[in-house]
């Protein structure tokens, strides 16, 4: 294997860099604002409490990417970085099988067996497990080679990027700079990757910080609170007044590269045992909030959006 250096690249890398990646703009018009689907180089943050549907939505979007074009997919390669061993392959496959089966009804039966079709979709996805922020950083360096040599990979998913928050915060001691150092380096690297290679990044963050400064009655609440060490930037207003767990707490470098932010909430369980999940998407390109609701069924997500 020849040494790969940032300054010099061989012909294949040059072509892959200039040619551009497959586009993800129509990945899911239900949840992204109109005409503001993720373009190349966008970073989407999925934020919400546990059980609010972030991982389900991620699987839905990943399935859309890896399915073949004749089934409504985008045939885009995906790299999935799993930082808290949360990746549920069986759930992903059952949702994938559900989607493939429902598309099969519409088209005439193909020659491939369902198993083989699932496997060919899964070949477009690769999974990495990281168990510390240092390993995440080094893995991202390693993945740079993957992105440069495979132009069909268009999406990087990190679930979740906030997994090492507490461990880093403690091991950094008193200095905020030390605490955030690893995440900041990862963010700088992500920034470089998305600018040079045009990949889209989806990252989930757990909602663990309570927004004590917010008043539940007021709708436009600024998220910055001066007392917190890792306080958020001023760009993101609270989309839901009832969501008092949506305070951004990751480092400022991360706040700066996020282009779309999706807040997930779930309704309390209604009488017929059906839970409604909703997302509210804000982006730096458009004003306003795009809201959407969905149910989680056995074969994935069913939207109940009204356009």
């Amino acid at each position, binding site marked *: 294997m020849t040494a790969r250096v940032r*300054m010099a690249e061989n012909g294949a890398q040059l072509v892959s860099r200039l040619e551009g990646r497959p586009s993800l703009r129509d990945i899911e018009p239900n949840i992204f604002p109109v005409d503001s689907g993720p373009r190349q180089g966008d970073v989407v943050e999925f934020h919400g409490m546990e059980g609010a549907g972030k991982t389900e939505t991620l699987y839905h979007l990943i399935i859309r990417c890896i399915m073949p074009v004749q089934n409504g997919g985008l045939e885009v390669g995906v790299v999935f970085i799993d930082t808290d061993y949360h990746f549920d392959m069986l759930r992903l496959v059952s949702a994938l099988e559900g989607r493939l089966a429902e598309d099969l009804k519409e088209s005439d039966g193909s020659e491939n067996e369902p198993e083989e079709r699932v496997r060919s979709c899964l070949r477009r996805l690769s999974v990495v497990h990281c168990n510390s922020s240092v390993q995440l950083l080094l893995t991202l360096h390693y993945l740079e080679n993957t992105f440069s040599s495979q132009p069909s990979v268009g999406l990087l998913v990190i679930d979740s990027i906030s997994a090492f928050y507490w461990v880093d915060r403690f091991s950094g001691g008193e200095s905020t700079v030390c605490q955030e150092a690893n995440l900041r380096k990862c963010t700088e690297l992500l920034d470089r990757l998305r600018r040079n290679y045009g990949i889209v990044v989806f990252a989930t963050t757990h909602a663990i910080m309570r927004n004590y400064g917010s008043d539940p009655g007021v709708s436009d609440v600024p998220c910055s609170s001066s007392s917190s060490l890792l306080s958020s930037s001023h760009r993101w207003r609270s989309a839901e007044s009832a969501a008092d767990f949506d305070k951004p707490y990751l480092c400022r470098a991360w706040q700066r590269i996020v282009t779309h932010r999706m807040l997930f909430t779930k309704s309390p369980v209604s009488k017929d045992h059906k839970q409604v999940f909703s997302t509210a998407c804000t982006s730096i390109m458009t004003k306003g909030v795009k809201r959407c609701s969905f149910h989680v069924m056995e074969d994935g997500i069913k939207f109940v959006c009204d356009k």
Partner: protein
Amino acid sequence: MVILREGICPGINEDFIKALQSEDIRTVEDFVSFNPEELAQKCSLSYKALVAVRRVLLAQCTAFPVSAADLYEELLSSTAILSTGSPSLDKLLDSGLYTGEITELIGSPGSGKTQVCFSVAVNMSHQLKQTVFYIDTRGGVCANRLLQMLQTSTPDMEEQMEALKKIKVFRVFDVFSLLACLQNLRSNGLQKASVGGGSVKALMVDSVSAVLSSMLGGKQNEGMSLMMQVAGEMKMIAKDFNIAVLVTNHVTKDGNGHLKAGLGQSWSHVPRTRVLLQRVENAETPSLRTATLTKSSRQACRLVEEFDLCHWSEERSTSISAKRKLESSKP
């Protein structure tokens, strides 16, 4: 952070490290963040050596991507579903405890969490003939009680002793010993156990909140960091060794007066499935309990089943029936 020392990889000697330190590069993360060409100019080190060392360090410390198709094949062959022995609880958990996942049992004091853990352990060691590792943080494990439970399933002394031998109990009373115990298990304990003939399929920690809740609160970051490290160890054990992990936790009330799991928001992301145990009020038999599914990736939440702690393997027809139950589609 990983500090650069000589011997960390071939090609790094003392002069190399000294040259890097003059540029304030002391850790592996700093080293890989720099472009080798710039470093070669600044530190007067050989470009080839820098590139070679960078490659080796990355190869040593990175995690490698695996194709999802291969991962799926592996999971299909290695995932197992362990029955808990109680048909009601199995229904709630979609046939039982899944290996590779953490399942959480929550309930107020006296709701029966430890008894459920005992019953599940006894079922696994006796019916399923698997070794169970039981980490006891409250001093609640009583061998007599386990024996009593075994005696109801079989009168044969030999079988009872065999089953008791398969339940290995570790007593830890603070979070540091818990971490040490888990790390020990991960590095050699589990392999030894599987080499010795039995296979370990279950790990129980009763209870995880007893050692963690005293470390949380106030401005202590250490407690949160330790909690996430404990979570990380348990997840690695579950995934790498294909083990079903069952933990117990206490309950608190949220803003609306509903019961929720203790240990806060950060812990709530850790388990894959969560079951709430409650006493049945005004029941004729004092050992009746209800189990409610509060978090699951496979079934609709809020399913409720009733069961009797004393008659573990009996099916109980429950008066609270679930309106919707999703069929599992896994082979």
